């Protein structure tokens, strides 16, 4: 590991008043909620999305979907005042569905109904449930009613799962379904450990194929690796699939998760215990060095998995006083929140706005900020090493002992970059304020 540079003492700021969320929540931090649905649906092979919305919405959502969901053409009807006021929404949706169905290689048509279509009242019973034998799946994701993009991922995944899940096939003993967009190597690593316990990973959702949705119903249990897939796990629960909350994160978390999975899959208790103990020992061996000791780190993300990340950092020795997320509180977030609160985290903020994160920035002195794009930009303006949450999380394994070692080593390196951040601030501090010369 690189040379250790002195970090801010963790207890440097210790105000007596508890942290309060900002009274003004002017700028909620989330991508347009509907994008979550598009990301899940556009990536399905053979899916031709039809979006029912106005042109401004269409432009923005198509832009981001083409950029980071799929290189997939998107169909929509032109919806203006004329169409909306004369009750043509239904006809418009039907026309778009027909155009989508005319594409070669199309096997499913997700119809994504957005704010104006929902306000105008798009009726599901008047849409075809299939066209030319191709299933049509309506997904309602008005931004005004769903409050974050991860929660729209859940709605979209649950909608297609409900449609395609195989209800006939028997549950496969020992087979676990993973739910969560994770680093591609993570399911393989989890599968390797599960096999040692006598189980295996059946499939990971959201995926790229309708077959994966069909197969998911055959799992003996489902693990919601990310805590916002409430409807999705609900669909599987109705099918009699047991649900495991949380994820194999860090030393405490990995062992506890493996035991919970062992129970849910009814695996041999002694074998599970042995594997869990091995994983924990490997993790503890690395943690003995406490690579992040003395560092104060802020974690602010969108999808609730920032709590998993915060747990890793805390186990690595860091002080993580504040964690914020865009999703709402639920049973799936409870265990991680409780663990964090028991390990020095003072505030866990749900449905946060940038104003909450800025209040936290004023309250604590951070050595590293892992944040949303807006927050990371703000921290960089202050010369604090900071990275966009998704950029660092999505590019390396996270789970079990191996994931922990990869993630913590990277975080330690980030903090060594502080002089670069300070130098940039110093250089740009006296920039011409702008305006016409």
């Amino acid at each position, binding site marked *: 590991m690189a040379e250790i540079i002195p970090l801010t003492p963790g207890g440097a700021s210790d105000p007596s008043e508890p942290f309060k969320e900002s*009274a*003004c*929540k*002017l*700028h*909620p931090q*989330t*991508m*347009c*909620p*509907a*994008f979550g649905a598009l990301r899940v649906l556009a990536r399905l092979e053979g899916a031709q999305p039809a979006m029912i919305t*106005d*042109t*401004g*919405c*269409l*432009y*923005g*959502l*198509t*832009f*981001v979907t*083409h*950029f980071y969901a799929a*290189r997939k*053409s*998107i*169909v*929509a*009807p*032109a*919806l*203006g*005042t*004329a*169409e*909306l006021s*004369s009750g*043509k929404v239904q006809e*418009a949706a039907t*026309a*778009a569905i027909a*155009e989508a169905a005319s594409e070669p290689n199309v096997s499913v048509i997700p119809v994504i109904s*957005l*704010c*104006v279509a929902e*306000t*105008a009242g798009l009726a599901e019973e008047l849409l075809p449930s299939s066209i030319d034998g191709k299933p049509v799946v309506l997904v309602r994701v*008005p*931004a*005004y009613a769903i*409050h974050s993009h991860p929660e729209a991922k859940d709605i979209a995944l649950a909608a297609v799962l409900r449609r395609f899940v195989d209800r006939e096939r028997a549950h496969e003993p020992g087979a676990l379904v993973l739910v969560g967009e994770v680093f591609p190597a993570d399911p393989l690593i989890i599968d390797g450990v599960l096999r040692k316990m006598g189980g295996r990973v059946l499939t990971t959702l959201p995926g790229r194929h309708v077959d994966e949705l069909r197969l998911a119903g055959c799992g003996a249990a489902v693990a919601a690796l990310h805590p916002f897939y409430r409807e999705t796990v609900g669909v599987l629960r109705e099918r009699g699939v047991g649900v495991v909350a949380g994820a194999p994160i860090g030393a405490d978390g990995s062992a506890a998760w493996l035991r919970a999975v062992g129970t849910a899959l009814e695996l041999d208790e002694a074998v599970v215990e042995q594997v869990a103990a091995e994983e924990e020992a490997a993790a503890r061996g690395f943690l003995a060095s406490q690579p992040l000791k003395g560092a104060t780190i802020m974690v602010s993300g969108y999808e609730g998995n920032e709590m998993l990340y915060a747990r890793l950092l805390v186990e690595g020795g860091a002080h993580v006083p504040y964690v914020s997320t865009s999703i709402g509180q639920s049973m799936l977030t409870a265990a991680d929140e409780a663990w964090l609160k028991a390990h020095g985290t003072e505030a866990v903020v749900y449905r946060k706005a940038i*104003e909450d994160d800025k209040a936290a920035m004023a309250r604590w002195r951070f050595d590293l900020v892992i944040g949303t*794009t*807006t927050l990371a*930009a703000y921290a960089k303006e202050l010369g604090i090493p900071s990275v966009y949450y998704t950029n660092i999380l999505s590019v390396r394994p996270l789970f079990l002992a191996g994931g922990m070692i990869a993630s913590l080593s990277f975080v330690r390196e980030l903090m060594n970059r502080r002089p670069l951040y300070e130098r940039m601030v110093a250089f740009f501090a006296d920039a011409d304020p*702008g*305006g*016409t010369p």
Partner: protein
Amino acid sequence: MTIQLIRDISDSSSYWGASWVFGCFPDLHIVCDAPIGCYNLLGMAVTDYTDALPHMANLTPTSIREQDVINGTAQALVRTIDDLRSIGSLAGKRLLVISTAESEMISADHGSLVAQLDPEARFFWSQSLEQDEWTGRDRALLFAWEAYGQPFVTPGAPPRAANLVNIIGPSLGCFNAPADLHELRRLITGIGGEVNLVYPYEGSVASTPRLADAAVNVVMYREFGAPLAEALGRPYCFAPFGVFGTTAFLQELGRLIGADPARVAAFIAHEKRTTLQPVWDLWRGPQSDWFATVDCAIVAGRSYVVGLSQFLGEELGMKIAWSSGRPRRDDEPDNIEIRRRIHTKAPAFVFGSINEKIYLAEANARATHYIPATFPGPVVRRTTGTPFMGYAGAANVMQELVNRFYEMVFNFLPVEPIKAPGSPPQHVAAGPPAQSSAETMAWTQAATERLNAALEQVPFLARISASRALRLAAEQAARARGAREVTVELVEAAIAHDSS
């Protein structure tokens, strides 16, 4: 009423266009009456990929929720403005409230409410359900002039000086604006003009009355901006493209600002020896011969379509296969038709947006070069070194095309990959199949005709390589089957394999 269908929309709505104009003013704060998504997509996501701004600092949403859709957005608006005041975001700034498609859907017209809350504040009804971003930009520019400029200008006052020139148009979400603006400024000052105001890019609410100081306006884009120039009532011209187009522009602008014709001529002469020297050198070199042999398609804003068609088509003699400008005219292909044309026969060069790039990827059109020339699509164009407009633009575009030619030649040359010892066997896309024979194989006439027809679809420069690759693939397949001649079926199979 027939329903129009859209594929991969190219033009945004007037809410976006207007916000991209108003968002340039540092002394204005915009409240958009919008659900969180309309705020985020514009203010935090897309503007980061079009303008490389981490976010729009002067935009705040009312964050319309379900209850607001039912009860109206007035409460949310009042709360938002109160909160902005309480954290000091409105200090020293004018407030502008702008409607969006969703707020218009529920008829949330806040003209009088905004006036009650703050007599200095304004409400902009964006008409986002009917109007596109170009109309939105135009209306925002006129609105800014009428609200913040005209009332503070003495009617009939003459220009402050005869050589003062405004540049109207560059704003957020305008592809390549910094580089084109830099070139335009260089041209204007080169012949003795003085740039008065770059509006709205470098403008503000406070500086808006100064629009009246200039004697001439240069409108940067044909797709929007001219209505403001008309309202200002001074002569105006559009930003130029190409060698001859730019020369004509300089002569006209020179007349409009009363520049000494000798000075204009001297500047042009100097440019020929400096900025334009690479155009002359590439024209005299073998590179320019290629321009006669290749075609291109242009999908971009109206200015880029007109300008590139003139420079590449009329000045360099390149074949313009087809083009589609924005806002689109009825006689130009929409995205459904553009996609069909690209899938059928992709030109050698496609100037366009991410949409065209996707269509090329769908068609596996490896012999076509895509060159970003418009939004949508994430691309950073913040330096001054990538102009399309003016003399520097002519040199830059020509240089870019020649470099793409070189790239194409490189990619089609045979390569023999070097394998590390023990590594798994590799497949290489370009180059001939590994196995071949020294002996010439017979081809049926139908097979030869089929090969020629297939090659007709390949851009000219790639044809030699493509013909070699297809020929070898078909002959290899024939040998594998022990056939004595290449049949049309074998050619079909080779073509299908190549395009998969």
